[in-house]
């Protein structure tokens, strides 16, 4: 009797989980349906939820804008940001893990202070800086301001601190410099940190919107999300094309997520488990 009740409860919970999960996926599904809907079935009441497999909207989307170019821009921006965040994060994180680095508590404090500044509040002066560096309308203008991430530094510091000190001693006996130790021993052992930093940088950088919106004019350096926003401005009433375009920009990140979702979830969750957690001032980039 009790066992039966428990089983019922489990089934009930699974039904609840399925409903919530489908609810969260539903907007994606409807966008997909709209993007392949025959013209006669877009504006109907009640809305049509069955796909019609008409691919004309997709053809028109591909003709409407050089998506390949915008996509390439986004890939270059995201890729080089990840690389730079890894380099600056690993080197600074390594320095902060060195027991012999005098002044590192001060440097740690300086890094912490950076987290107190909300990006929204320095948007305008950052634009002024970018103007004077002549990096408006360039790809590097979308990379440089994000080339350092304090979280990356702390994640690397945390990892390097867990490496046994004998490793460094042995490396020194072999005559290895700190540089060789970092790149050939410490970093390969810190694959989880590299993965976490890469994934988080990928997702925040691919979604970047406000900054590229402000600093790009014309096609020269426009990333795909800004291009999509302009497309919405011109073609706001063409639902099918607009749905197709937004799915187009969603595909890369969804594919990426499918392969890495476990790491994603653990990356976000893992940090809660340190009980001495504080909270940053800086918010999401959206």
């Amino acid at each position, binding site marked *: 009797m009790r066992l039966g009740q428990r089983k019922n409860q489990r089934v009930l919970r699974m039904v609840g989980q*399925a409903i919530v*999960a489908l609810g969260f996926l539903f907007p994606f599904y409807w966008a997909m349906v709209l993007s392949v809907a025959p013209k006669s079935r877009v504006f109907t*009441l009640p809305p049509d939820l069955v796909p019609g497999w008409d691919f004309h909207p997709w053809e028109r989307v591909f003709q409407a804008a050089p998506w390949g170019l915008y996509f390439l821009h986004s890939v270059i921006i995201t890729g080089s940001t990840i690389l730079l965040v890894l380099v600056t994060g690993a080197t600074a994180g390594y320095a902060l893990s060195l027991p012999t680095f005098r002044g590192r508590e001060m*440097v740690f404090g300086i890094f912490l202070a950076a987290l107190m500044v909300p990006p929204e509040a320095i948007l*305008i002066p950052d634009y002024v800086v970018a103007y004077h560096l002549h990096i408006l309308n360039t790809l590097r203008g979308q990379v440089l301001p994000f080339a350092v991430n304090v979280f990356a530094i702390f994640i690397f510091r945390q990892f390097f601190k867990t490496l046994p000190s004998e490793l460094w001693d042995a490396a020194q006996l072999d005559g290895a410099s700190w540089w060789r130790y970092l790149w050939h021993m410490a970093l390969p052992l810190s694959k989880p940190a590299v993965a976490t930093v890469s994934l988080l940088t990928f997702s925040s950088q691919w979604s970047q919107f406000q900054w590229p919106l402000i600093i790009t004019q014309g096609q020269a350096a426009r990333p795909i999300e800004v291009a999509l926003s302009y497309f919405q401005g011109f073609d706001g009433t063409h639902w099918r094309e607009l749905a197709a375009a937004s799915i187009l*920009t969603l595909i890369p990140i969804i594919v990426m997520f499918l392969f890495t979702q476990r790491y994603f979830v653990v990356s976000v969750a893992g940090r809660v488990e340190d009980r001495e*957690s504080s909270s*940053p001032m800086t918010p999401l980039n959206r």
Partner: protein
Amino acid sequence: MQENWNTAWDRPTLLTPSKGAGRALMRSRKAVSGWLLVLPALGILTLFTYGPALLVVAMSFYHWSLGGFQDSQWVGALHYRELLNPISGFLKSLSVTFYYVGIMVPATVALGLGVAWLFRGAVHKSTPWLTLTRAAVFLPYITPAIATSIIWVFIFNPQFGLANAALKLFHLPALGWLVSSTWALPAVMVNNLWHNLGFTVVLFLAGLSNIPGEAVEAAWLDGANSWQTFRYVILPYLSPVTLMVVILTTIQAMQAFGSIYAMTGGQFGGGGGPLNSTTTTAIYLYKSAFIFFHYGYGAAVSVVLFAVLLVMTIVQKQVGERYTSYQ
């Protein structure tokens, strides 16, 4: 500029020097390399974070021209006086922001906790079913807000959208949503709740899996019913995570931009909804500087936004920590 991944960072732990005797010899050389190693990071942060944080304060006292200080005109506190003038619309933007934050924070905590409770179980080890369903909840969080906000524009279309179709199903009157000054902001809220809830759920899941099983068992043995167990055992254990969620959601909501821009006409003059009903301070700031090109005035808005966020975070931490139980 600092990107935030919304993870909590660890507090500076005790930095004790190691005892290795051989290391003393290397000390001076390695101290130099330590500074060398942090130089790239410090340099870029100076250029794009520390410097701008000072510059924004200075800019707010000038009629700023992009040419720099020599081309700009000192106006003293003029911009700040303008902010306080109701005609400027800044105070209205603050009240829109507080309305938005005031709904988003409790809604995120309640729904986040509810959904996490439904999907509870260990974060690291879980069944394929749980992994799959949780991934569905988390997915919107990593998608670019522009792309998904476009979908929500369809959903909230007054004529052919799903939202009104659903209302009709329950025999409720249709709403104007994004073209209504009353309902535009709630529509944005629904989008952002959907978009960001996965993050909160993951935080609460981690919090739930940290609760020791013995604590719950002990409550059961003492004859507590499920509500009492939840209220007096589980909730106190979750209080640190809840505080974190409150602070992070506040910060996030105060600076929401992409979704509001895409949903309420950003492409047409910066957006902000019918009768400025979705003009939050973040949108107001953007429009001041990049639609109307009043950089100095925008800087004053930034300074006030910075101050408001700082005060709110400090108050939340102070009040929160009084009600937070650590074990």
